[in-house]
């Protein structure tokens, strides 16, 4: 019995369909004992977005509607990127039972967990759509360029997850280190503040931060109705690079992962 050689998508992400159904199960499990179910994702996110919009919208003296879209997209993407980065070091350990019993590629577990956060992101973005439709008066076709932008975020996160998960089984304090770094970057990246408010000299630093460009490829086409070409180039290169590096590191370290999970 020889299994047929996988091709294309299933070669790069083995068993992605299984990963997706397990991820969907994870989402259902998370809210299985609540009446509101996945709406909790929406509620907690809405609280944060509204709170930030009210306070910082007033501080930056921006039109509240624009700022609401800016913050809700920023928070949705940031939550996605930072939960993947801080959680990825325990992805493999948490799937130990399945990996040890069934004949599945171990990277499937990483794909599964990124899908879970991807589903949460999708829910946040779906909620953001009516907000955008109400707040943005002049929506053009260019807004659809946000979709490739979202895919760049997914690719970037998946690449990082492969790297972090590969080292996370070996280094038990990696998640703590990443938590501190992500908190710093949350304040350092214009997730909920406007780049212009920083003044001309300091705002240059924002452009050296690749995370800014990952937010911009989704926010730019909707809020400014233009394609931020620089950001697309940078985010595109970084996401392809992180995916390639992730696959390389995971493949290289794969043989040692089991040893650290005993």
């Amino acid at each position, binding site marked *: *019995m020889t*299994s047929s050689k996988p091709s294309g998508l299933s070669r790069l992400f083995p068993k992605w369909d*299984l990963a997706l*159904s*397990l991820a969907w*199960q994870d989402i259902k*499990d998370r809210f*299985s004992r609540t009446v509101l179910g996945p709406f909790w994702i929406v509620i907690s996110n809405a609280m944060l977005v509204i709170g930030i919009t009210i306070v910082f919208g007033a501080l930056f003296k921006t039109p509240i509607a624009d700022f609401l879209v800016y913050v809700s997209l920023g928070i949705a993407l940031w939550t996605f990127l930072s939960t993947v980065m801080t959680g990825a070091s325990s992805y493999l350990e948490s799937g130990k*039972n*399945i*990996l*040890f*019993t*069934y*004949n*599945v590629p171990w990277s499937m577990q990483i794909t599964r967990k990124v899908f879970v956060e991807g589903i949460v992101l999708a829910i946040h973005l779906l909620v953001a759509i009516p907000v955008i439709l109400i707040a943005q008066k002049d929506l053009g076709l260019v807004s659809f360029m946000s979709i490739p932008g979202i895919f760049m975020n997914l690719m970037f996160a998946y690449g990082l997850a492969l790297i972090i998960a590969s*080292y996370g089984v*070996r*280094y*038990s*304090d*990696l998640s703590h*280190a990443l938590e501190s770094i992500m908190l710093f970057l949350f304040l350092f990246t214009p997730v909920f503040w406007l780049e212009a408010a920083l003044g001309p000299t300091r705002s240059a630093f924002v452009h050296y931060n690749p995370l800014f460009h990952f937010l911009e490829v989704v926010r730019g086409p909707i809020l400014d109705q233009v394609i931020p070409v620089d950001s697309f180039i940078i985010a595109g290169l970084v996401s392809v690079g992180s995916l390639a590096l992730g696959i390389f590191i995971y493949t290289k370290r*794969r*043989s*040692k992962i*089991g*040893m*650290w999970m*005993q």
Partner: protein
Amino acid sequence: MTHIHFDNIDVSYPIRVGGRERSTMAALAATASFGRIAGDMKKIPYVNAIRGLSLKVNSGDRLAVIGRNGAGKSTLLKTVAGIIHPLSGKSDIEGSILSLLSLGSGVNMEVSARTNLKLISRLLGIPKSELDVFTANILEFTELGEFFDLPLNTYSSGMLVRFMFGAVTYKPADIIVVDEVIGAGDAKFFKKAEARARELFKKSNILVLSTHSPDITYELCNRAILMSRGEIIMDGTPKEVWAEYHEALAKEG
């Protein structure tokens, strides 16, 4: 062709000592200072569970792994199952693998057996068209009755074992790896489980079984290896190997 080839493999486990050896900060410091600071963190103590082992198992072999506790039997099985990889040496395994090393994994305790089977069928690679046959087979085998549609957390431990055992032994594989004999519930079920396991083992090309029972070895295996301190000290027919093992045990007293 289904086979397992190990050539001079070493399998080790890192010993989990203090936090220092597993610290990102110490690793960064050691790397940045070329080992001058915290350089010792790269020297993790390892247990050599298997040393310089070479083994060829070919299609048709039903191999019993015999030895005292701590001889490296479980490590060898985990290596065959692909859970641990050798640190050195060559390992070449061809064929689909089913490992029965522990039960009760990958299930969701809050939903019913029927719902769990949908997920397990995907993990086992059972096509959707076969799901009904699979479900019917497990229902019949486990004799769970009305419990089949109740959440798993209402099950007794015996029922849970029956369910897990039934589910994972449904589909044959080229290579089957079994650790010890799985103690499954009551005596009646044990017979049934044995019959199912035997049938499954017969369908496989290679069986690797670690056991403490001569009877099971004689019945299921046509080859046996005796392990001691991570090495194979004898490879032969089940009768020869058990005789040697009993002798060695008698000598040690």
